[in-house]
Structure formats: structure tokens, C-alpha cells
């Protein structure tokens, strides 16, 4: 049994929150550079240049990449041989609180009815997975809501089939227009149950940008959906061109014979994510 102190987790989460807001990871930067290099629209190309410069300024001057520093989403994989000393949940929330306060990040969390801001950007949403081993992996995905608001979940009839799934995803993504700050990453959760599909769609965003599904038939669908979305010419910020989406990531899970859940979680180009392994 390995012991990990909750204070170490708290400090780690604080650093993840600050790092994620300021420093884009290589996967998204490379995807934006590749998009810029293949862009045909003049205005879209200019804006991709602005986005690359924006990432540079953010990292250099410690200004958040986007003013919407998001709600905190934490994914934990806890090894079965890990014992956490102290209160894990309290440590996670305190880590988020410290990160948003000390990093000068925007506090965007409020009560859903009164709309009163909690003032701390907490509570963060926490997902726990128990896995074999003696390590603790923490992934932090601050999620801005311009893109989150364009997400959806639908329970299709099984008869809709693969074509129904593809058509639905493309329709939803194109209907989002320029609201989610394209070029976007489209997370698709297919199968499972109502709540499992939504979680799969979000977890799909954790995959390195552009990395295909390990399932060959799913990878084919990802590529087809991406091609069709980009072929519609909405482009960067809806200003035309060929880069409406940077990637489509689809995660699947077996579902009931009567069911075909499809969840779509859209991520903006300011795709912030950081990982810590203890």
C-alpha cells in the first residue's frame, strides 16, 4: 500500500489549474499550427495566427488563454494500492480554490437558481475511477461554457443506426455555428446509458487532439464526421474556410438492445488540459 498525503494532491491540483489556464499543451498547439498551414480562407488564416499569438502571449505574460477559465472538471484514476491520507474531496476542492485565487483566474461558478457566484470557482466536478496499481493520476480540464453550452445528448432509436448517429452529430455541430469558438474538438460518447454517454463524450476530449480511436470502424467514423463538418465551409469562427473542427474523438460502450445514446461534448480551440501523476 502506497501512502499519498492529501496536501500533496491539493498543491498538485492548484498547479494544474494555473498551468492549464496559461499554457496550452503541445497537442492543441500542433493542431492549430497544422490548421493554419492548410487554411485557405484569408480571414480564417489571420484569426488562426491571432490564436497562436494569443497562446504565446498567455504563456509568456501569465494572462489566461481565454477569460473563461471555466468550471473545473477533475478526472482521477486512483490505484487500488494507494491509500490517501486525509480528506481527498476536500483537498481537490481546496486545490481548485487556491489555483483560481492565486492564479488570478476568473471565478465562473454560481448557484443554478439564484445565479449567485460562489466566489471560489468551486465546487469542481469530480470523476473518480479505481484502477489497478499504486499510482494516482489527476487530469484537469477547465471547461469554458461557450462550447459546453453547445453540447447535447439524445437517445436515438437503434434503427437510426450508424447513419443516424453520423447525421445527428454533424447537424448538432453545424447548428452550433460560431458560438463554441471553432475550430473545435468534437467529443462523442456513443452507447452505454444516459449518463455514461455524456461522460464518454467528455472523456473523449482527454485524448490527444487528432489521435484516432483504437477501434478501426470508429476511427473511420471519426474521420468521416470531421471531413463532412469541415466540408461545409463554416470555418474558423464562422468566417469561412476549411477548419471548422480540428478533430472528432468518439468513445463507445455497449448499450441496451433498445437504446442508442449519443452525447456530444464540444470543446473550443482554447482546449486546456493538464495531467499530474503521483
Amino acid at each position, binding site marked *: 500500500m502506497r501512502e499519498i498525503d492529501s496536501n500533496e494532491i491539493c498543491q498538485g491540483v492548484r498547479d494544474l489549474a494555473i498551468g492549464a489556464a496559461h499554457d496550452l499543451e503541445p497537442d492543441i498547439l500542433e493542431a492549430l499550427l497544422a490548421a493554419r498551414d492548410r487554411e485557405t480562407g484569408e480571414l480564417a488564416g489571420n484569426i488562426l495566427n491571432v490564436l497562436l499569438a494569443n497562446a504565446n502571449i*498567455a504563456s509568456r505574460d501569465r494572462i489566461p488563454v481565454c477569460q*473563461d477559465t471555466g468550471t473545473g472538471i477533475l478526472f482521477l484514476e486512483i490505484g487500488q494500492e494507494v491509500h490517501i491520507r486525509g480528506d481527498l474531496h476536500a483537498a481537490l476542492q481546496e486545490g481548485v480554490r487556491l489555483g483560481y485565487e492565486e492564479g488570478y483566474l476568473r471565478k465562473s461558478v454560481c448557484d443554478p437558481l439564484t445565479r449567485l457566484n460562489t466566489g471560489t470557482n468551486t465546487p469542481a466536478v469530480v470523476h473518480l475511477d479505481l484502477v489497478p496499481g499504486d499510482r494516482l493520476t489527476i487530469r484537469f480540464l477547465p471547461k469554458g461554457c461557450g462550447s459546453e453550452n453547445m453540447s447535447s445528448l439524445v437517445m436515438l432509436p437503434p434503427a437510426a443506426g450508424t447513419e443516424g448517429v453520423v447525421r445527428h452529430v454533424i447537424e448538432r455541430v453545424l447548428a452550433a455555428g460560431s458560438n463554441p469558438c471553432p475550430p473545435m474538438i468534437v467529443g462523442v460518447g456513443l452507447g452505454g446509458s444516459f449518463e455514461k454517454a455524456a461522460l464518454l463524450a467528455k472523456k473523449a476530449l482527454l485524448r490527444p487532439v487528432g489521435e484516432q480511436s483504437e477501434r478501426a470502424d470508429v476511427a473511420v467514423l471519426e474521420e468521416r464526421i470531421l471531413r463532412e463538418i*469541415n466540408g461545409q*465551409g*463554416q470555418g474558423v*469562427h464562422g468566417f*469561412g474556410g476549411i477548419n471548422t473542427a480540428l478533430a472528432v474523438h468518439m468513445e463507445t460502450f455497449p448499450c441496451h438492445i433498445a437504446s442508442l445514446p449519443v452525447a456530444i461534448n464540444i470543446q473550443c480551440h482554447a482546449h486546456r488540459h493538464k495531467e499530474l501523476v503521483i
Partner: protein
Amino acid sequence: MSLLASEPAFFDNQLEVSLPFTPEALASLKAGQLVSLSGTLYTGRDQTHRRLCALLDEGKELPVDLAGQLLYYVGPSPARPGRVIGAAGPTTSYRMDSYTPRLLALGLAATMGKGARSAEVRQAMLAHGAVYLAAIGGAGAFLSKCIKKAELVAFADAGPEALFRFEVEKFPAVVINDLEGRDYYALVAAGNKKGEG
């Protein structure tokens, strides 16, 4: 990672415009045009809109006269000590749609955010002679450099949703809806099917 080492020169063909707009400048804007804004504007998002309309409901005076002004939909991140402001890119405009016609009727000349507006807002813009601009979504760090002064005007307790007055310099934006009823997003969608352009 070969990131851009310095900020490249953008938008050589931008039209330089002073804020608040003169009626002539407002009328000269065309959908799809790139503009570079310098001068004064006001900010407001969800909570500011809700409160402004609540004041109107109560027959009270607004904390600022919006006639002729540009209202920028933004909820900036906090400024580090010694800085003017944190990241300050546009938020999604449709959330303000239900309030916007009322503010346009007060003489608000322009709004700026990201994403398309409702048919009601487009109609109200035509009726009241107002335009809508899009700022660059997700470029909050870049745009913060174009904000030279930020002053709290009202609703301090709304935090990032408060109403600020900004002094901006060469703030880039794209005209989406002009005084003649053109909509740039719609023009792109109509002309650009299948990625021809």
C-alpha cells in the same frame, strides 16, 4: 514547439474607427469588414443585462447612458497587480438576445460578442440603426493588450459580470450585422457551402 516568437502583423486592411461611433462611421460599416476600434466602450454580460432591465422595469435611471455607445459582451478575468485587466475576449452573444432589443430602443448603437443573433435582435437593429460586431473568441490574452484602461461603473458585486468602461486601442473586430440588414455569418454560409472559399 515552434510557436510564433512575436505577434505578427494582422489585418493590414482593417478600417480604423473611433468609439463611440459617429453616425457616419456607423453607416459606413459593411458586413464582413475588419475594423480596428479605438476609444471608449462599455461592457456587460448576463447579470448586467438582467439588472439593467430590472432598473428599467422599476422606472429607474441606468448607471450609464448607453445612447450611441458600444456594449461589449465580456466577463474579464481578474487583473494581476500592476496590470490593467486579465484576459478579456468576447462571450457568446445569444444569451443577451432577450434583453438586447430593449437596450437598442434606448439608442445603444452597437453590440460586440461572438456568434449569431436572433431574428428579433436583427430586426431591432434594423429598426433602431444599430450594428453587431464579433470579436475574436478565445483570444482573451491577445485582446487584453488592446485594453488600455478599465474602470468599474456598476454592479461590482456581480464580479466578472460587472459593468466596466474600457479604453481600447486598435481592438480588432469583424462587422457581422450592418445598418442595411446584411449578416456576415449568413453570407458566409450561403457562399461557402462545401468549403469552396
